[in-house]
């Protein structure tokens, strides 16, 4: 079937199988491999993207369902070479280790901060509780999101490898 999905502000028209999951559309059709896949049961949240600004698990969403909606992936967080404060925060506060859950965590954080610019630690933990991180023990993720909340307009320092 023909679908048109807007990803990070760009329209993508493709002929896909009706059963194609959004996560595979993003990864295999568009080559946006920053969105990961980690379980079969919507438990792990490594596949989280934003649909019209709300976090959704792209492993549980058909591509067809996303048609006509605006999808934001991790590749869409950085704007004009400037990191989103959430990205900067994860670097500042060591909010990532292996990096596999990180894109989903950052997108949930972005959605949270859009809704609630000054969340409590409890609200942050609640917001990310549908996602699993096996490396960090979450405390530094909470601090990363707090950092982003405290630096909303920070001119991000360049994070170079």
């Amino acid at each position: 079937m023909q679908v048109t999905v807007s990803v990070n502000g760009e329209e993508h028209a493709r002929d896909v199988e009706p059963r194609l999951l959004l996560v595979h559309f993003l990864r295999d059709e568009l080559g946006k491999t920053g969105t990961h896949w980690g379980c079969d049961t919507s438990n792990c949240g490594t596949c989280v993207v934003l649909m019209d600004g709300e976090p959704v698990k792209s492993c549980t969403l058909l591509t067809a369902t996303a048609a006509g909606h605006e999808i934001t992936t991790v590749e869409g967080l950085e704007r004009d070479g400037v990191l989103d404060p959430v990205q900067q925060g994860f670097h500042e506060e060591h909010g990532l280790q292996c990096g596999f859950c990180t894109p989903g965590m950052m997108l949930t954080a972005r959605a949270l901060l859009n809704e609630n610019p000054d969340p409590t630690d409890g609200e942050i933990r609640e917001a990310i509780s549908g996602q699993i991180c096996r490396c960090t023990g979450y405390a530094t993720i909470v601090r990363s999101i707090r950092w982003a909340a405290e630096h909303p307009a920070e001119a991000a320092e360049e994070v170079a490898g």
Partner: protein
Amino acid sequence: MATIEDRPIGFGRLKRKEDARFIRGQGKYVDDVQLPGMLHGAVLRSPVAHARIVSIDTSAALQHPKVQAVITGKDLEGLGLAWMPTLSADTQAVLATDKVRFQGQEVAFVIADDRYSARDALELIDVEYDVLPAVVNARKALDADAPVIRDDKEGQSNNFIFDWESGDRAATDEVFANADVVVAEDMLYPRSHPAPMETCGSIADYDKVDGSLTLWCTTQAPHAHRTVYALVAGLPEHKIRVISPDIGGGFGNKVGIYPGYVCSVVGSIVTGKPVKWMEDRSENLMATSFARDYVMRGEIAATKDGKILGVRVDVIADHGAFNATAQPTKYPAGFFHVFTGSYDLAAAHCSVKGVYTNKAPGGVAYACSFRITEAVYLVERMVDVLAHELDADPVELRLKNLIRPDQFPYENKTGWTYDSGDYENTLRKALDIAGYDELRREQAQKRERGELMGIGVVFFTEAVGAGPRKHMDILGLGMADAAELRVHPTGKAMLGLSVQTQGQGHETTFAQIVAEELGIPPEDIDVVHGDTDRTPFGLGTYGSRSTPVSGAATAIVARKVRDKARIIASAMLEVSAEDLEWEKGRWFVKGDPEKGATIQEIAMGAHGSVELPEGVEGGLDSETVYNPPNLTFPFGAYICVVDVDPGTGKVTVRRFIAVDDCGTRINPIIIEGQVHGGLTDGVGMALMELIAFDEEGNCLGGSLMDYLIPTALEVPDWETDFTVTPSPHHPIGAKGIGESATVGSPPTIVNAVCDALKPYGVRHMDMPCTPSRVWDAMQGKAAPPQ
């Protein structure tokens, strides 16, 4: 504005170099690799735990328009690849030929144009099974009427794998016979799973023309894997390139070689195209390396005033259907014999019996250095059991028995030499942070009101950095690691490592070691790993061995470069090398500090036209292989506070204090992160995570809906601190830290839960302490979880 504190040239709180790609979604994991013409594989797995295969009909699958090939065990038999050696020198079926021996075992491999079609075709394969009774409980594996699982092995007439012991049995028996107090406890360290967020997978690309194989693979040990493939498949080793790109967490799960990897290789050879195989989460949980599964009976002997005299342990080790555990050859139970813990004992003995069951093979790890997790759990629970019997304070009991600083290097009763420690200092620091006495007062008040609060205390000693080659090898490969340092003419450098990060931050930490030794800024050092074509040979990352082994290799190779730089500087400065003195980043003339050359200037000089002394070659590159003289022995004091809901049995971890000592601290940010992650593993194991089976051998933990992993809501904000007792034999005094918290935290939490349940007379309960199991314990019905 960056300060020197933010950007240390050497050890310190340097933010990670590797973050740049990960925060942009630009990490490159195995499943992100797309090759032209690539096909997709999927594995058909056994639905039953034990059955004879009557027939396999693949004809319908082959009719599928997008299927390119279907491979069965019979096809592999023709190639001599139906079985492969395990890391414990047993054999494991790649695809089953005669029987299936656990639920989820690999039976056939479909190769199709896309991943959905490959999965569709699995449904079209018809396998007829003749179901056999299954052995699930390790305690019953050696019963006379137990079905024999490994009838493929000549001479195997039961489910016995090995008997192994350590310590002095007679001396220990004597100590026990004469002790005032002897307490015994049966405990199970249940089966759990590392479950990294990225599952396992591979892409094999075989080039028929030149006979070369490139294998992208989720492996923690790319070099060891390459050698095993060469030995198994008969492919020449120099024609195999293993690339382990970014790895989405390993925790031991990615140490082993899985049938799926081999199938992707065979698939590429058969089809002539690259073949990708990525397992799904159920496959990961049901078929790849589990962890633990130790059935233990511990006994502890003491005087009536609490001097611990000895510990005695009997273990039945459940190794599943194939003995695929990754332990050094000499030690089939890994380093379990470090169960003497942090205490000065008169005698100790353990015996371990390995058995086959109809469960998944592996037993590799889960952030555990070779069975030390089980050992620490055993001894730390036993000390609390003793405290319960003596009605002693668990802290006082530990303080009375800890090895004293003046006893190091300390030889324990099972043959280990602990390198360094100041245990009491570390424990007291944890007690101060926790406010231990105040916590006990709060607990007493709460108990009067019927509230259940528990305080758990643990002191653990780890043994990491395997290991000295005369004692430790895996499949005959000595457990050494190499480092190669290339210094380019402009003074920028490349460090090649045989170890492989899975999130531990090697690209930062190892650059810092070079920076500390040579004064080259970390951002000028590219750390290369995970590619056998670009890095020197070594055994890889597991068992917290990267810093103890490769960290040492890195320091030594940097020192070799520094020594060479001295000779080159002496030629450049026209003074004798003996007259030069080093300060970080620069050789200068003694007594004339203005006259000198920076490492960058020397690098250019090394490649330039300066006349060098007779016999000295140009360039600064160097390579070394490090054979550790001993393991390193990090340690820590952990305190946990839990609240148990008396109405539901639900345990809440309110506080967790972790004071770790890993010797010299290279990057405290990364160390803290490693500790946080391990503590969370501990909450998982102690309260939630369990791979259980029913009587027929059906896996009951085969998805993340059943195998529960902590989220941000189940863990507290960790309280971490540290002491520093350098390792005397490590070049920079560092010890491993990756697994300390995973080792130390489960018994801390269980000690806290049992402490909370003391009013109910609970002395011990097995993990996981789920609400229903805690509730059972409160009713006096504590039982193992299977």
